[in-house]
Every structure is written in C-alpha cells, then in structure tokens.
C-alpha cells in the first residue's frame, strides 16, 4: 500500500511499523520504527502520560520524515 500510494498518487508516505527489515524488503521509503507488533504507535506499559509522549514523539518524527527529501530508503531513528 505504501509503495502504491507513492507510485500511483504521488503522495509521500511514512510507514510506522515495528519490524524494520520487512519494511525495507517490501520497499517502503520513509520508515519510522514502531514500538512493538501489538502496539506499534504507543507504549501502554508507560501509563497514560508516558504513552501520550511516545505517540506524540512518533507522530512528530513521522511528520519530519515526510518533509525530508530522499534519494533512497531511510530509517528515521529516534
């Protein structure tokens, strides 16, 4: 889906998921590592406040990734 949206619609996509090698294998360009497979975009073990911080940080990093010019696949680490 990531590849097709970029290819067909020309809209840049940031993919947040946990298993980075799979995203690299399937050809995602802007990759933001998620937390864990059962909860990629948050960390419920950190409590409500901690979870919110994790989610905010991930979202801001994803927005930053979207604005980045790329020539190759890139993993946007924290």
């Amino acid at each position, binding site marked *: 889906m990531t590849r097709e949206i970029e290819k067909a619609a020309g809209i840049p996509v940031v993919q947040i998921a946990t*298993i980075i090698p799979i995203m690299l294998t399937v050809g995602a360009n802007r990759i933001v590592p998620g937390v864990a497979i059962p909860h990629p975009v948050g960390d419920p073990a950190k409590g409500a406040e901690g979870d919110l911080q994790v989610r905010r940080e991930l979202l801001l990093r994803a927005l930053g990734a979207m604005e980045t010019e790329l020539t190759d696949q890139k993993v946007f680490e924290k």
Partner: protein
Amino acid sequence: MRLELHRVKVRDIQWGEATEVRQGTLYVNREEALKAVEDSRLPLMELDIARPGESVRIIPVKDCIEPRVKLTEGKGYFPGFCAPVQPVGSGATLVLDGAAVVTCGPIVGFQEGFIDMSGPGGEYTPFSRTFNLVLTASPVEGLDRHQHEEALRTAGLKLAVWLAQSCSEAKADEITLFEKGTASEEGQKHPGLPAILYVCMCITQGLLHDTYVYGTDLKPSLPTLLHPNEVLDGAVVSGNCVSSCDKNTSYHHVNNPVVRALYARHGKDLNFLGVIPAVESTVMDGKLRSAAMNVRLGRELGADGVVISEEGYGNPDTDLCLNARFFEQAGIKTVVISDEAAGTDGASQSLADATPEMNAFISTGNVNEMIEVPPMDKVIGDPAAISLLSGGAAESLRPDGSMHVELQSVIGSTVEIGYSRVGCEWI
C-alpha cells in the same frame, strides 16, 4: 543422559470400566477422566473419541498432546505443569504411542485449526492417524481469554498425563533409547565430526502466542540450551493459538523430528550439540538480541553448522532471516526449515522478509493453498468456528457441511519441524 521411551502401542480407543491398555486397545473411564481435569473456569466439559478413518471433524482444535508419564527419575510429566520443576530427559517414560489428547471448544484465539479423521483433509494432519480422546471444554461466562487459554492448556496436559499414569502398568511393546553425554563430553568423543546445533524457534509473542520451557514463559528469556533428551521428555509445552498449520503443538515438541534425525546421526556423521528453544519477539530489539545470543551460544559451543526451524509466519520470518544472517556471518553454516505464505496461486513472495545469507531453505508447503474437504458425518465442537479461523471465512462452510479453505486451517499441515507428509510428492 539416558532416556528410555517405553512405547505402549495404541491401536484402538474405547470407553471402559477401567482406564488401561489391553491388547493394544486404550480403554477410558469417561467419568474418571472428566474428574481428573475438573476446573471451575471450565464448567462444561465433554469427552469424545475420534479414530483414524472415521467420518469425524474436530473443530476448533487448540492443542494436541501425547499421553506420557515418568516411570523412573521423576513423576508426572511436563515439569512445571503436571510435575515438579525437575530436570527431565533421564530414566524411563511411558508413552501411549498412537494416542493423542485433543483440546477443543469455543474458540480461544482466532488461529486454531481443524482435524478431519478421514478424507482429503485428514491427509494433511498427523492427528488423523492418532486415536484421539477429545476434550471439549466451554469456559465460564466472562472468563478472561488468557485465563481461558491457560485453563484449556492445563486441562489438556492433565488429561494426557492422567491417561498415561492410569496405564502405567502396561507392558511396553518397544523401548526407544536416547543416550548422549554433555556437549563437552561428546566433543571429546567425536573430535572429527562436524558439530551441529539445532535452533528451534518458538512463538513467544504474548496475546495467546506463547511457549513454555520447564513451566515458565519463554518470552522474556534469553536463549538457553537444552539437551535433546529434555526436548524429547516434555520440557517444552505449547501455549499457542498461532496459525494452526505451523504451530508446534505439545505433541510435536516431544516428537520433534529434527531432534530425532540429528540424534540418529549423532556419533556417525555429526556431533549433535543440543537445542536452543529460541525466542521470536514482538519488538525489533528483541529479535536482534535473540538472534545475536543464539549465535553467541553456537560459537561458545564450537558449532560448525546449525539447523533452524521457524514457528509461525509473518514477522517471525525476520527472526529466521536474522538467525541465518548472523550465523552465516559468524562462519557457521545454516539450513532453515520454513513454510511459505505465497498466496492462493503460489505466486507471491513466500516470506515477509528475505536475506541473501539464507541460502539453504527447506519448504514445508504453502499455507495459502486452497483445499476442498467433504462433509463429515459427525462434528466435535462447532462447525461454524471455521469462519473465525485463520484460513477460513464465513463462506468457507457450505450448507452440506463441506468446506473450501486454506491449508493453514488444518492443524499441523505445514508444521516447520517437518512432522508431516506434505512434500513435492506424497511420502
């Protein structure tokens, strides 16, 4: 370490006054069996018998367990569950060879499967060839799903151990011996033979996807090393509701064909170092840590080669690739055993991940292959459960009871330790 499996061959199963084996028939006292597994969390329990060749479907199946009990050097079975946490793998163990306990009932996790005791579906599962005592258990209303899983898992283990215990006076038809020293002793005995390690990847992902070693959840563990006898003597137990085609049931673990094959060649053309029950984590760092530590153990043991079997598919494909890559980079040759999720036409990429170091691959089949199974005269459990199983859908079950389903809904059909008859040809 010397393990004797005292195999009592079971060629039929019947209800009886006393629970015992007589002339190859396993007689079961139904009331006593139910009493042995009582659990207030599972107020409704039923027992059924299913024999090879019968027109019977069992659905949804959670686990299959071989009835076993320690005769010497231990008591009960499955340490941490139905036995004290004691080292296993030595002494004598009674095996009701040809029998299985099958746990069934309202669905615990969506990735459970079915068994047909005859017909084309039966060809794909080893449990169509076992004489099955089927425990169908319904949970008390509102029972937490993890509690439900734990209750059903424990009930199945208890029933299997109770059965074997009740038959412990039976005379063995055959005794299989597994004897091997420590990795260090065997290395000195066989200095010229290639040292081979077996990495048995296990689903350890929480959310009803767990494996237990000596009664404890493997998920938070660092990789550990087991003597092959420990694997063959009940140290590893399945708590998995992962895709039924490629989960290692508790039955599979004690009959692991990779362990038995390596054992058979031990001291002849290889030196079998042991087994790592390896973690498949849900976080990237966990996957990296597990693969790195597996290699660390392999290097410390002086492994020349490693056999790696996967459990499950999807994200564990990355664990498989990492294991292959890290071992190969450490100069240790690898061969991997895995199934494929290549789509219903077989044309899609088989694994979610890939790496050039994964250069020797044994496939146990395509989980997405579509199969047609005819109606069965009797259904144990709930035929409509197919709509909830991986590989099934609401439209899978037709009004006449036949089903059009993916192979992955058949329990054990593509199991990645190779305990099946699926190959390029029927074998």
